[in-house]
């Protein structure tokens, strides 16, 4: 896409906030496009072998977890194994396959249109709210429903209400019940309360949602426990614990993606008629990474590279660490912030935000200046 003169005013608002001229913005977008094209052309056997290897590992952890429930002393091991299985399934496999990152392989088992994951949210419904709404309108307050998930106040641009005094409690509940929160997210309850959506709009979603919930519940809370006979209560508790572990882990990783201090949010007006370069810029400024080792990257489904994921949502996630160095270098050259930090620091920052915005204010008359490199302590 190119910028035509009469569009320039609207286009450069975010760029101005970030201190980029329209020319710089276009060059910035071009550099990211080049990375994308290069990786796309290079996709091949290594990527296929990697994802198949992760799937193999996930299946083994799952079978091992289910089997170990027959040995009562191995209960913690069974729970750990099943938790790892569910985390791998939802994050490195499910999230990324549902993004269509492996559609190019032509393997129906790894195709975004056929895959479903091991949690109560139907992949089909999640793809709409996530791939479309969240990834297109990232951090646009009022459009991206992942800003607070319709439950929390995570941004000063969200108008305060006494309801938000419960922010920390809601966040805790959402963490424990995360898969249910994700499943119900598509029903847009907050929009129904606000009168922007009618109950009838949700009708087509119910059958798929109920089918998926029933399947997951029958498997984890009825059949597998029943198959262990007298150990059924232990197995049921184990399965529930594994789901809980996955919920807590996924919530924490995902909240570190867009809510740490220094992550920018945007208004509907300033993001109208965006160019490719501006979209890239918004994705960069609206996301934050978690620094860590290969194990963290694997278990987070490479959402530890949330920035790279938002710039290139359909590239296989295993490529994010590889392009991260380049993205960082580009950011440095353009004087843009690259928000990253270790898990504990990002989590602390998110927790502070959850508590801060439970209370009214701060009143924001005009958009904050976008953080630039060196201007923010979190930006490394």
């Amino acid at each position: 896409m190119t910028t035509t003169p009469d569009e320039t005013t609207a286009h450069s608002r975010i760029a101005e906030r970030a201190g980029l001229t329209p020319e710089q913005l276009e060059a910035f977008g071009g550099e990211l496009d080049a990375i994308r094209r290069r990786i796309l052309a290079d996709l091949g056997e290594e990527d296929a072998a990697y994802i198949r290897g992760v799937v193999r590992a996930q299946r083994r952890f799952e079978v091992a977890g289910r089997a170990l429930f027959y040995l009562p002393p191995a209960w913690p091991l069974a729970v750990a194994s099943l938790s790892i299985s569910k985390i791998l399934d939802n994050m490195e496999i499910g999230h990324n396959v549902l993004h269509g990152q492996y559609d190019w392989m032509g393997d129906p088992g790894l195709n975004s249109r056929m895959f479903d994951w091991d949690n109560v949210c139907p992949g089909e419904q999640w793809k709409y709210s996530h791939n479309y709404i969240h990834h297109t309108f990232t951090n646009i307050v009022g459009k991206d429903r992942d800003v607070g998930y319709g439950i929390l106040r995570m941004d000063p641009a969200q108008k305060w209400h006494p309801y938000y005094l419960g922010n920390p409690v809601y966040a805790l509940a959402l963490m424990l019940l995360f898969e249910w929160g994700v499943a119900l997210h598509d029903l847009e309850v907050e929009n129904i309360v606000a009168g922007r959506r009618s109950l009838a709009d949700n009708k087509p979603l119910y059958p798929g949602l109920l089918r998926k919930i029933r399947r997951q519940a029958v498997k984890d809370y009825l059949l597998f426990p029943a198959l262990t006979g007298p150990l059924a209560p232990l197995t049921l508790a184990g399965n529930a614990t594994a789901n809980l572990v996955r919920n807590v882990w996924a919530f924490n990783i995902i909240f570190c993606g867009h809510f740490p201090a220094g992550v920018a949010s945007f208004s509907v007006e300033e993001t109208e008629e965006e160019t490719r370069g501006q979209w890239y810029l918004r994705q960069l400024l609206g996301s934050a990474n978690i620094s860590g080792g290969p194990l963290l990257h694997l278990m987070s489904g490479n959402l530890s590279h949330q920035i790279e994921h938002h710039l290139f949502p359909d590239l296989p996630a295993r490529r994010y660490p590889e392009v991260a160095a380049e993205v960082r270098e580009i950011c440095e050259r353009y004087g843009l912030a690259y928000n990253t930090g270790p898990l504990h620091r990002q989590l602390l920052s998110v927790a502070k935000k959850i508590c801060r915005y439970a209370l009214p204010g701060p009143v924001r008359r005009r958009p904050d200046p976008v953080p630039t490199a060196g201007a923010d302590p979190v930006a490394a």
Partner: protein
Amino acid sequence: MSLLAPHLTRGRDPLGRVLRSRLLAALAAPHGVDRYLEQVNPMWAAHEVRARVLDVTRETRPDAVGPPVATLTLQPTATWRGHRAGQHVLVGVDLPGSARRLTRAFSISSAASAPGERITLTVRAHPEGQVSRHLVEDARPGDVLHLGQAQGSFCLEESPATPTNNHLVFLTGGSGITPAMSMLRTLLRDGYDGHAGRRVTFLHYARSEADQIFAAELDEIASGDNGVAVHLRHGDARFSELELRRLVPRFVEADTWLCGPAGLVELVTDAYRGSPRLRTEFFKPAVARAAGGAEERVAGTVSFTRSGVAAPATAASLLEQAEAAGLRPESGCRMGICLSCTSTKAAGTVRNILTGEESSLPDEQIRICVNRPVGDCHVDL
């Protein structure tokens, strides 16, 4: 392997019954039983069909004019439901080097099979065809292919067990011989009796003697006492109505199976003057167009955004409309199975030609071969 031995019919297959049970499906949800079995052995399956290559034999001679042809003998998984003579099957190949699975349709050349039975595919290595070239030139015994179930209605409907006196005519050209060969082999295997007064005429056109597929077997059939008349034409010989009339005087009333290149199909179709006795198989399946109801009117404009081309929308698939607009998008099976034509629809509503399902999601991945526009539509091509 032995636990899942083929040759068991579905009804008597206790392991298959367990693998396809509701209990196992519930335990393996949401991925499905096959996603676990494949981790142990690619030839274990509850629903999907895969096949191991047992043998690859070259059919054409090295001095052939056209591209080489080979016959692959396949051992399918116990999930193979068998095929009727004349049917084809979708074959998915994981192409080495690219990690991409491509799926194409191939006619089955062996006689009608029972569930789990071996089959043969006879494939011409088209210069442009990655899958056919791989199967003919690179496939080795032990390789595993991804199969669908047999499909297609270009079949021998008559049961050899209840023979009639109908004269059967097979008209084929080039690799179009494969489905006809399956029918002929079925007739001969299942006790076809030429002495009952029934005749079979097998007329085939090949580019040269060296290009003749199944040459030795056809030679044997021709010399056998079976009522089958085999006529092979090589070189510049073209189909002529006169010649067919000489071989089969009342051919318009004879049950006829026609399969071959477009030129042959056109000449024969003209000669039969709309006779319902003529059954034709095209090399390129016409599924998408036939099921779509081409007469339905469509309003709006299709814009191919990347190339900046726009055209009035029609009831044809987006792939066909893109090609009509002069674009050459990547495509494969053109039946909605292989996913190679998946493109991004930026905006607009499309209807799936196969299911009738409509979808209006922006930035949606669609298989353009089986989707057609409903009103305005923007495709990233």
